[in-house]
């Protein structure tokens, strides 16, 4: 498929600190790509560089095949950007904010109104359009920001924490819209909510200290960890001796304790029975066995080591 966004050896410095380090990757047209990573990993900066808010010091960003530095005015209208922080003008109504940006992009008033009403209906924010932004809750304003980013009908939508500040219903409305747009628009988003990423991904990029350490679909990323399970056993009382004894059971990986519970990983199910046998004398209150998810992939280094 044709690439919508292409990065070639993109590097970004702030003073002497490297924020992005020689990133090279492409994003296919119409795909939905999530970027995850720890704080300060460079996720938001990557979105800013791609959207043109900040220029990179090194390398090239191509949007629809055009160099973002040399052809800025040609490509800028094909991008819609939703930052993490609320950035609407608080002294205008939601409608005025959206209309103003639509006109700035050269969209005629009638088209702006039609799109605004349609998108506002999908996002369930029609009753809030006439309100001053400063009087609206942050979750609704965030939906207003998504509406503003879409009003000029960009090919590429870049979102930094698209569902930040939202309640469950708003979260659902937002993802209903984004999933409807999947395939029609290239969407790139950053999220700290790994469950959100697990639910609605095409591809996941894991960023660590400005470098992409993992790249692929959820199935691919978790591919080499499918054999692993995470176990948790809650005891009535988990003594230090018992914890140490259980930690030393062969095949137990990354044991940790939270109160009277022991949490560990194991490749085979029989590790669970080995632990149960070793703890036979202690009173157990609860047990759980789960497959690994993105959270485990991010947390447990041993799981990631298996992929490389």
């Amino acid at each position: 498929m044709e690439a919508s966004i292409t990065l070639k050896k993109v590097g970004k410095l702030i003073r002497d600190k490297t924020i992005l380090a020689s990133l090279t990757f492409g994003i296919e047209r119409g795909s939905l790509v999530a970027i995850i990573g720890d704080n300060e990993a460079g996720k938001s900066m990557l979105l800013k560089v791609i959207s043109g808010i900040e220029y990179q010091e090194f390398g090239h960003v191509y949007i629809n095949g055009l160099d973002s530095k040399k052809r800025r005015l040609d490509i800028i209208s094909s991008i819609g950007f939703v930052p993490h922080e609320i950035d609407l003008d608080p002294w205008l109504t939601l409608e005025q904010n959206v209309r103003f940006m639509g006109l700035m992009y050269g969209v005629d008033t009638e088209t702006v109104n039609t799109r605004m009403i349609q998108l506002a209906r999908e996002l369930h924010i029609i009753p809030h359009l006439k309100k001053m932004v400063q009087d609206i809750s942050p979750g609704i304003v965030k939906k207003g920001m998504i509406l503003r980013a879409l009003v000029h009908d960009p090919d590429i939508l870049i979102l930094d924490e698209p569902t930040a500040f939202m309640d469950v219903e708003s979260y659902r409305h937002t993802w209903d819209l984004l999933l409807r747009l999947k395939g029609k628009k290239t969407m790139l988003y950053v999220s700290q909510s790994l469950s959100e990423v697990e639910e609605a991904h095409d591809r996941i990029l894991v960023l660590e200290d400005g470098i992409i350490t993992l790249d692929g679909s959820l199935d691919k990323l978790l591919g080499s960890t499918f054999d692993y399970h995470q176990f948790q056993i809650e005891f009535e009382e988990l003594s230090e001796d018992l914890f140490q004894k259980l930690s030393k059971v062969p095949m137990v990986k990354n044991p940790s304790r939270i109160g009277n519970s022991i949490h560990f990983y194991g490749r085979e199910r029989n590790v669970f029975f080995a632990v149960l046998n070793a703890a036979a004398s202690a009173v157990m209150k609860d047990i759980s066995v789960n497959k690994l998810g993105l959270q485990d992939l991010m947390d447990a280094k041993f799981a990631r080591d298996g992929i490389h």
Partner: protein
Amino acid sequence: MITFSFMVILPLLLHVSITMVMKNIFIQSLDKIPYEIWVFPGIVLTIASMSMYSIIYRDMFDLRIHKKSFLPMTLTPFTKTQLILGFLITSIIETTVYVLIAMGVLTILLPNSLDWSDYFIIPIFAFLYSFILGNIIITFSVLTDRVSTYIFTSVTMFLVIVFGSGILVEFEFYPKTIGIILSNLPLSMILTSLRGIIFFNRFDWTLIITPIVVAIVWTWMNGYLLKRKLRQ
């Protein structure tokens, strides 16, 4: 409504606190024009200055430092110079409305009214004056990131403009060298040129072209500064 009331009260305040006091000191200009008539264009441009400061603070500085809707504007298909020009034009249009209100109020307070054509000329020069002053304010707005610094520089600049542009006092009252330097600054040129036209029917192209060229170059420079500041 509050803004409108303020724009009616402001010229009244300036008339009471400046014109009514200063006319007892200066009585008339060196060219024998009654002080309250001579200072009229200066008071109008002072109001234009106050308006430009507050509008650019509201539309540009405040939105930029608080990260509200300014960055999205920079992502629209306009060059930074075009954006600066947009900020300037919108603020000048708003200022022109305030200037017209101020002229109306001040005229009621004048013992002798100006010629009717002067009421067309003054807003045109106020437009040019605001064009340059707006650029000065925008430069500070781009270079400054803190409200306290902005206010400090604004108040300092405002005082320099009011006392150093021939708004209240003629340049002949300053020490000779300082008077020559101040009278050759672009903002002073506009005021000198305006008074030359309305009081003596004297039209000096140099005094008009120079500020226009300065304003255009400054607008371009502000666009460059903004581009550097935003790292875009």
